[in-house]
């Protein structure tokens, strides 16, 4: 784990920079891919987004310390996913990820319950992705990354009041959609 701020300093050599970047990659790659996956719903695009953000970090070296590096990476992933989502569209939108019949045929009752729980989670995650941009990002920061309102505001560079407003509207929209789908 990278903890020494001095290793992030501008005097860092090329070799040291690559080593620190490698450590940062190995420490946070999986979490960032999952964050991007929540925002995009597509593994391949999520992986590409995270790699692009690491490349950007490499170009804009050095970060102040690991905390700022992680904040930079998270903000970068959210920005990159925002751009990606604007341009792309999911051909699977609205499609169930699994069909009940197939699940029942392939697995036992316990596993089926588990798969159906995952299926329901996928649908709700899809609903989160279909929210307007700010609501989507705030909901993901608050309830996936488990950031506080202040931390969310800092990451998204908006006010705490905006975080409260977008979270409230986003949750209301999700609640309404869940009730409609019953």
């Amino acid at each position: 784990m990278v903890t020494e701020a001095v290793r992030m300093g501008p005097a860092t050599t090329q070799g040291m920079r690559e080593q620190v970047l490698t450590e940062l990659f190995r420490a946070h790659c999986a979490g960032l891919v999952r964050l991007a996956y929540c925002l995009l719903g597509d593994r391949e695009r999520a992986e590409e987004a995270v790699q692009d953000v690491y490349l950007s970090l490499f170009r804009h070296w050095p970060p102040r310390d690991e905390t700022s590096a992680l904040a930079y990476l998270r903000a970068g992933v959210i920005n990159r996913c925002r751009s990606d989502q604007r341009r792309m569209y999911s051909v699977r939108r609205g499609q169930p990820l699994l069909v009940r019949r197939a699940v029942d045929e392939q697995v036992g009752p316990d596993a089926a319950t588990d798969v159906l729980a995952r299926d329901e989670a996928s649908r709700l995650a899809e609903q989160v992705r279909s929210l307007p941009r700010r609501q989507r990002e705030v909901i993901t920061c608050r309830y996936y990354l488990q950031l506080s309102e202040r931390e969310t505001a800092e990451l998204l560079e908006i006010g705490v009041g905006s975080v409260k407003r977008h979270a409230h509207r986003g949750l209301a929209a999700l609640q309404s959609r869940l009730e409609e789908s019953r």
Partner: protein
Amino acid sequence: MNAIERRVTEALHTYGEGLEMTTQDVDRLEHRLGAKQQKDQAAHRLRRTRLVGAAVAACAVIGVVLGALALRNDMADRSQPAAPPVTLAQLQGLWRVDGSDWLWRFTSDGRLVMSNKPDLLTAKVPVEAPVVRPAPDGFTMSDPATPGCPDRWSASISADGHLQATEPPESAACPGSDGVAGRGASWSLVRVSPASVAGLSATPNFDAMDPTKVAFENQDRLRGTWLLRGTGTVLTVVENEYPQDVHTFTYAVQDLGASTEPRTGTMRARLNGQVLFWPPDGTAPPCTVEYESVVTRNSSLEAKLAASSCDQLGGSTDTWIRLN
């Protein structure tokens, strides 16, 4: 935390943590990042070399021009006419980014969609797609995500179908706008459909591999966007959108210079290597395109039409070049 917050939290965690990331996955991504990094550094060096070269050339040109002007100070009109703006008609179509698997599609009403997936013929253009309008020396790009901040791109299109476009750096008036394609980045593209002179001579961007005959078990190798060599006809092949049907693919084929809508349908390879493309139910006549064999080298496809084929996508023997 109330009920809906708890439910969203659980759902997002189940969804996100459900994405399996093994050590091998991280190794694979790290390897790919290393390759991208090297490519990025090489491109940076090339840009720097070009900048230095351009600066030297510009100095030489300026010297020559100043000398000529000094000798001919009686020249009355030294002004150069501005390059004509690019038109929407010139932009409309599918463009390939040089050396990349990314494609840009400009619609007839000036909206821009970018993708490196085989989805540009069939998917709807999102309402939030950036909108392009001609302007002197290029075009403006309005991103609905940042209203009131249209970007002034410099761009030119050559007669043979090359587009050079540069996105401006972030403006002080609109801080925080992340741009459409990368702040300050320059792009070189070739129009592939409708066909252009440059597009007709397009070569693969992908590494060629050993020839492999496509059959049922490896038909996913046809997934991608393909350009029929020497034409503006583009074919896209994607997984069937119905998850319970994993043995067929969805295709679309279109020359954007010849038709307004793509021909679409279902594709499947048989165990014996025949590859079929058939239109949706209800299409009259229900005519299937049947290839006797399709051989892929990853970067390209060689397809031989069956004598019994009722229809065709190209000719009797086609070469398709992979675009992504």
